[in-house]
């Protein structure tokens, strides 16, 4: 049963890596200066963190109990679909209400009717 031990180890490493990434991106949410740079931290690395954790759990249950969890796969799919949409909407709302726009150093002109 050495193969299943190796797979268990890989799953554990994936969960560990995912949680480290989640911590780093939470730290980034606190540390970065304005809404837009924070949303960079909030969309990209958290997506990968949750993705790694869910895949680790999926692999673990598949290797140990031969249980193909459809719910975890659905979770991964919906994460892919919803995380970018949420990030875009938060950025857009912040931009429309004019929060932190002076912190954007270099900008190309955005037409008034889009504000």
């Amino acid at each position, binding site marked *: 049963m050495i193969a299943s031990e190796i797979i268990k180890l890989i799953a554990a490493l994936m969960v560990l890596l995912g949680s480290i*990434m989640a911590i*780093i*991106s939470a*730290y*980034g949410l606190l*540390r*970065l200066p*304005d809404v*837009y*740079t924070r*949303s*960079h*931290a909030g*969309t*990209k*690395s958290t*997506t*990968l*963190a949750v*993705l790694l954790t869910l895949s680790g759990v999926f692999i673990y249950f598949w290797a140990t109990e031969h249980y193909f969890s459809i719910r975890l796969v659905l979770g991964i799919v919906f994460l892919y*679909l919803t*995380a*970018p*949409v949420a*990030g*875009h909407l938060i*950025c*857009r709302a912040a*931009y429309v209400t004019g929060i932190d726009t002076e*912190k*954007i*150093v*270099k*900008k*190309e002109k*955005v*037409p008034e*009717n*889009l504000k």
Partner: protein
Amino acid sequence: MPIQFLLNLLIALLWVFLNDESTFEIPTFISGFLIGIGIIFMLHRFFGTPFYLKRVLSMIKLLAIFNYELITSSLLIMKQILTHSKEVEPGIFTYKTELDNDWHITALALLLMLTPGSVVLRVSPEGDTFYIHAMDIKESKPSVLKSIRLYEKVILEVARP
């Protein structure tokens, strides 16, 4: 193109019936489906449409590119979080896309949210101009533009192979 998939399912079902087993066996169905893929592949030029698995292949390619970009962008953003300096210049730039279908533009916007160093702020009402916020505009603008072109190419491949 859906007709090819339906035919493939029909061949798989026929294969299950011809095997004449007492219950419905999934492995038999899968082997029938594989045989159907072979038959459809040999016959697809008579249908006048491209082989339907070609579209599936380009979808897999899109997913692979997407995952690759997600991993590189996460590494980049973590590097920027841990070694954040005052010198980065956040900025906005525009990109005018050639895609015209609403679904293609939505897919492109979703992909752009997860590429290294870019967040889509607004899409113009006509749906052809993206206003993109970049973490460090000098560094990431060329790479973002490069990956946008790649995405457009692959999205069009999925849409009309």
